[in-house]
């Protein structure tokens, strides 16, 4: 019998933003899609989020931020992952993120940014396509 290891996802809320309705929805939708999901809870520093991702052996790190601090916090997390040789973790961003900021975030190593109006299916598809490609 073929056993498939579920994709492990850490959903993180970096910074001080307390709006986690979207993050929790995504967490639950990914879990319903068969993934293993760990939610960090609010107010995590980049260090804390990276260490949770490493401990949990996550393949995906989904970050949510609505406070406008994404340009500082997301790249910081990506660079910490690099420091820990964990660049293979797929980093996703979501929240109220202006279109103008998205190219910068992608340059910094965020694989995709999902803005308001994205459906959970889009995100699930993206994860499935991109995690498997990297031979997880």
């Amino acid at each position: 019998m073929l056993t498939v290891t579920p994709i492990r996802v850490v959903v993180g809320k970096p910074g001080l933003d307390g709006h986690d309705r979207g993050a929790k929805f995504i967490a639950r939708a990914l879990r319903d899609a068969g993934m293993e999901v760990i939610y960090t809870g609010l107010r995590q520093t980049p260090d804390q989020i990276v260490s949770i991702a490493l401990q949990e052996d996550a393949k995906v790190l989904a970050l949510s931020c609505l406070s406008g601090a994404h340009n500082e916090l997301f790249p910081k997390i990506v660079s910490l992952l690099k420091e820990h040789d964990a660049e293979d973790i797929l980093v996703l961003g979501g929240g109220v993120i202006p279109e103008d900021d998205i190219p910068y975030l992608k340059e910094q190593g965020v694989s995709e940014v999902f803005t308001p109006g994205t459906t959970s299916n889009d995100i699930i598809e993206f994860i499935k396509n991109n995690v498997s490609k990297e031979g997880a």
Partner: protein
Amino acid sequence: MSENKNKLREELENWKNGTLKKALDRFPERREEFKTNSDIHVDPLYTPLNEEDYIENLGFPGEYPFTRGVQPTMYRGKFWTMRQYAGFASAEETNRRFKYLLEQGQTGLSVAFDLPTQIGYDSDHPMAHGEVGKVGVAVDTLEDLEILFDKIPLDKVSTSMTINAPAAVLLAMYIAIGEKQGISKEKLAGTIQNDILKEYIARGTYIFPPEPSMRLITDIIKYCSKEVPRWNTISISGYHIREAGSNAIQEIAFTIANGLAYVDAALESGLDIDEFAPRLSFFFNSHLDFFEEIAKFRAARRLWAKLMKERYGAKNPKSMKMRFHTQTAGCTLTAQQPNNNVVRVTLQALAAVLGGTQSLHTNSRDEALSLPTEESVQIALRTQQIIANESGAADTVDPIGGSYYVENLTNKLEQEAQELINKIDDLGGAPKAIDQGFIQKEIQDSAYEWQKSVEDKEQIIVGLNEFKVEEELNLSTHKVDEKVADAQKNKLEKIREKRDNKTVEDCLNKLQDAAEGTDNLMPYIIKAVKEYATLGEICGALRETFGEYEADSYI
């Protein structure tokens, strides 16, 4: 009367079996079942048969049970306060926006603080990195508030401050700048949100554990009941509960359950109900389901009046009046076709007015993209002014009162909210229900259901899941300069050099001692802010004594 009703019942049956049935045989309805946002079944038609006892359920405006409004004349006397929430970057920039809004005809100020301020960190704290001045204005010391209210006469405007965990500190600063402007405490008018329970439930800007948080709140209530009599000491907020995904029934129930917890705490601290209840105020969301929202405001008002009278034996009618601010639902705005948001906001604002709000914030069309631009804020304010001055909606009291449908919904919402409050009572009240995660889970389940219904197109959102267009999101958005954080840090450094650090330390030590005991903390905090102790230092001293709250997360 009952003869009339019998006749009507008969005619209604005839209509159902005749005219309606024939029509349905030829053209079935769009859906199998129609429901409100809160899953309340909607009949095809409502008639006077749905109306119960007018005197008992509705009564007259300005009289118990206040279903038709808290004032006898409502907007015939004076429009609601048009209060746009604003704040970003530095105190200087926000001061400019405030003056702009006052020039545009806004009648009250509403301050948005950045997250470090809301969570009691100074701008140079490591946790503040990336957040300074982003979602509101950064306030570190009294100096920032002096700049924020420069040349704004505090005896002429009322100011609402969206501040919760460190509410005591901001109120203390406001009192201090009042003094500097030569305005005594008795003349200051405004509101601090000061609602910590909903922070644990829905908004996340808590600092201390529930018990000391509740003490800070009762200290403020006690202090203001004697010293700052025109101040609304708390704004019990359903807004964020709704934004977190609750439905209308849950919004009423959880907000009122939190309100009951504050009342219980104030009573336990030795106050009499009629001493503080008149200064309690509320804050609600105005969401998409137009009639359910109108009914929600009316139901909440009636339910609160009954609880205050029957449960607490309040004697002063002012104690029974639920006065509330309303904000249109930010969570319903779409990033797609943002101009459609102007229409959504208009409907939501109209529902709030028809529901009898005392004050209103209309959201700006670009809020799903970033902080609003000045142009968008102006359209949002104009929306209120058009409703007030052009639509006629403000010309009679409770114009929707007596709508068979709305009265029926009002009754149902009240009943269902009461049942949910009973459940929370059984769990030991709101703080215990929050402790057990009951309220958080209820909200999350509703949020999940809602989002699923949007994704499955059971709920149509124009421009998002239907009627889509190819578009570039090229609306010019508002940006906060990253230099704000550096400027704040410089300011802090200078103040720490300038002030009398020994006195500051002494103030902080005394505050800590008081926090360990039972003294009212307000005078200690006022003393500290006047010496330019920082918000972070004051909250830090209290953190050491009270500890910090750690939330459980449920998914």
